[in-house]
């Protein structure tokens, strides 16, 4: 889809962007970080559990797939200011709804991963025109007692890293301290990383199920589902659960050699599927 007529102002702006850029945008009482990368068809991207830090692989992969990616970060993620009002899933829904309006992503396609996909589905349930289509990467939000999603936080940091991607080195730009950073700057980098993890944890605590099944029938948006074949966090069996629960699934894809954060393990493959899935 080449949507040059989209009301999506930022996406239109992104079509002229050739390098990854980051800006801060006031949305309500929050200041949101928005990353942009690539040239081509505009598409939104909503991060998973570790946000979208500069250097996130999906940003680098956008151009080759002819995608102009606009990637806002929810409050608390990747330097977006934490909101005092993120007490329940409804607060997150209002935040994302405001963010897609402010960034011009409303009405367009959105790629959303993990916890981001969870919030995007909630928005789609209450606001059917929010997205033209959803391309969901290992969404969280369903729960089966007999086949539970693994607790990503009842573990050490290094073990959590191994849970998120098949190749733990893939998430280095999030988990590793940047070279050359020292003193207070390094401390603040660590605080920001902790804040991102806090925000992600708050979305899935204690169980990543906010009763979406009560309203999932309202999600009439076309959905493409992607799952990593090596997802150690959310078993691949959930792919079938989502496909059965969502009313309008147009395609499902299993991505080889990918863990939970599929696009961190296999950014090019994901970008290619996204480009081919756009309606």
């Amino acid at each position, binding site marked *: 889809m080449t949507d040059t007529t989209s009301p999506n102002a930022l996406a239109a702006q992104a079509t002229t962007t050739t390098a990854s850029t980051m800006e801060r945008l006031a949305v309500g009482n929050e200041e949101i970080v928005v990353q942009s990368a690539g040239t081509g068809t505009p598409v939104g991207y909503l991060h998973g559990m570790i946000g979208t830090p500069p250097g996130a692989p999906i940003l680098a992969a956008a151009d080759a797939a002819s995608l102009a990616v606009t990637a806002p970060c929810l409050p608390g993620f990747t330097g977006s200011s934490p909101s005092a009002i993120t007490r329940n899933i409804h607060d997150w829904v209002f935040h994302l709804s405001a963010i897609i309006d402010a960034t011009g992503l409303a009405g367009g396609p959105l790629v959303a991963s993990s916890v981001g996909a969870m919030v995007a589905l909630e928005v789609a349930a209450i606001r059917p025109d929010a997205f033209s289509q959803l391309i969901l990467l290992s969404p969280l939000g369903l729960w089966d007692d007999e086949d539970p999603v693994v607790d990503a936080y009842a573990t050490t940091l290094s073990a959590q890293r191994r849970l998120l991607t098949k190749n733990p080195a893939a998430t280095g730009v999030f988990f590793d301290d940047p070279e050359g950073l020292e003193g207070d700057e390094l401390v603040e980098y660590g605080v920001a990383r902790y804040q991102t993890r806090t*925000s992600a944890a708050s979305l899935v605590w204690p169980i990543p199920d906010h009763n979406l099944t009560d309203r999932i029938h309202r999600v009439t948006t076309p959905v493409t589902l992607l799952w990593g074949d090596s997802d150690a966090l959310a078993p691949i069996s959930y792919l079938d659960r989502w496909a059965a629960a969502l009313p309008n699934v147009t395609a499902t894809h299993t991505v080889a050699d990918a863990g939970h954060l599929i696009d961190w393990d296999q950014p090019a493959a994901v970008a290619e599927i996204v480009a081919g899935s756009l309606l």
Partner: protein
Amino acid sequence: MKTAFFHLMPYPDLPDDFPETHRSVWVDIDPGLYDPKVGHRAYNDYIDELEYAASVGFDAIGVNEHHSNGYGLMPSPNIIAASVSRSCPDATIIVLGDSVALYNPPLRVAEELAMLDGITGGRMVAGFPVGSPMDTIFAYGQNPSTVRERYHEGVELITKAWTSDEVFSFNGNYNKLRYVNVWPRPVQRPHPPIWIPGGGSVDTWDWCAENDLVYCYLSYFGYKAGLKTMNGFWNRVKELGKEPNPFQGGFAQFIACADTEAEAWELYREPAEYFFNTCLHVYAGYADPPGYKTPNTVRSGVEGMVERAAREATARAEASAAAKNEPKGPLSAGPNQLTFEQMVEKGYVILGDPTQVTEQVHELCTNMNIGHLMALAHFGNMSKDLVKYNTKLIGQKVLPELRNLFEDEWEDKWWPKPMSAEERQLRDLSESTIGATK
């Protein structure tokens, strides 16, 4: 200074190979390890020990709250407090405390502590911990990003419920109550003293310092390691231009006292090793759920007490797994476990004859500026006889030497103010005078 006999109430019969065969004593401890008959015996022994402590010179008895925990069998400290409230008619009872964020609504805490204050005639201290991550975040499923806001709202609600002269509405973020009206009212006015048990959060230092609350550092790692944390609190007090009244500080310390030092080494080795190597076998993955720490605490790099315990326990377990072929006796520390000598040398356990213990406790209190000592005279799998021996020596030979510490110079503004002895109703099981006159 004042001293409480503080009890953790550990399960006493965990298997010798627990650290090698189980991941954690907390959160996911195997339910199959719990024998209700052992639990029955332990509860009754422990209540006996609390009552005994109150009879041999301790100023107070202290209880606390843990969940899904093999070293803390007190999910409800208020139940234990109630069980000793009449059998210990003169002791202060320190509930240290009720994890406010876990009660919905927290009015339950206001009510139960007011009941206890009423039964005891105003001998209660109300402790309000945020609670450990294992208790609050994992065992009770609280969201780490909101648990502190929920906690502070709960404390606000409780104190208002105790002090308001009128029925009021409370419109909080987590508590919506049209009619707040706690009956009974606490005996102590405006309310029982509030102590805040802390594990190392710098924001808790600030909160206690700003609001004149007792900061109680409940560390398992003794007075040498605890100095940095207590200094952090006292620095905040001084920065606010307030006086460093030692009675605003509390500290927990394991104490092993015997007639001779040699006897102490012999008597307390096994229970200390049981506590530090078995009871503190906590999985590190439960120590730091993101959001539990405030940004200021992350920024400061201060490691919480249970976080340290879990980190060290997991490191020991991993080292043991790596060296699993090395021999290990059933009652002595394994090759990668803490030895009793290390525990004493590091100050985790104060050990010695009464004179030696007195000197060390004096050093602890003066160095850390502590007016309220939570003495852990029971630890690990001590027999009741040994607990009584330890307790009596501390109560009758150590505490009398320390009782006047700070008392002349500072006022203890955080100690309960009970009804007078004449006003207080004591246990009365005498026969009815009505029947006797017929």
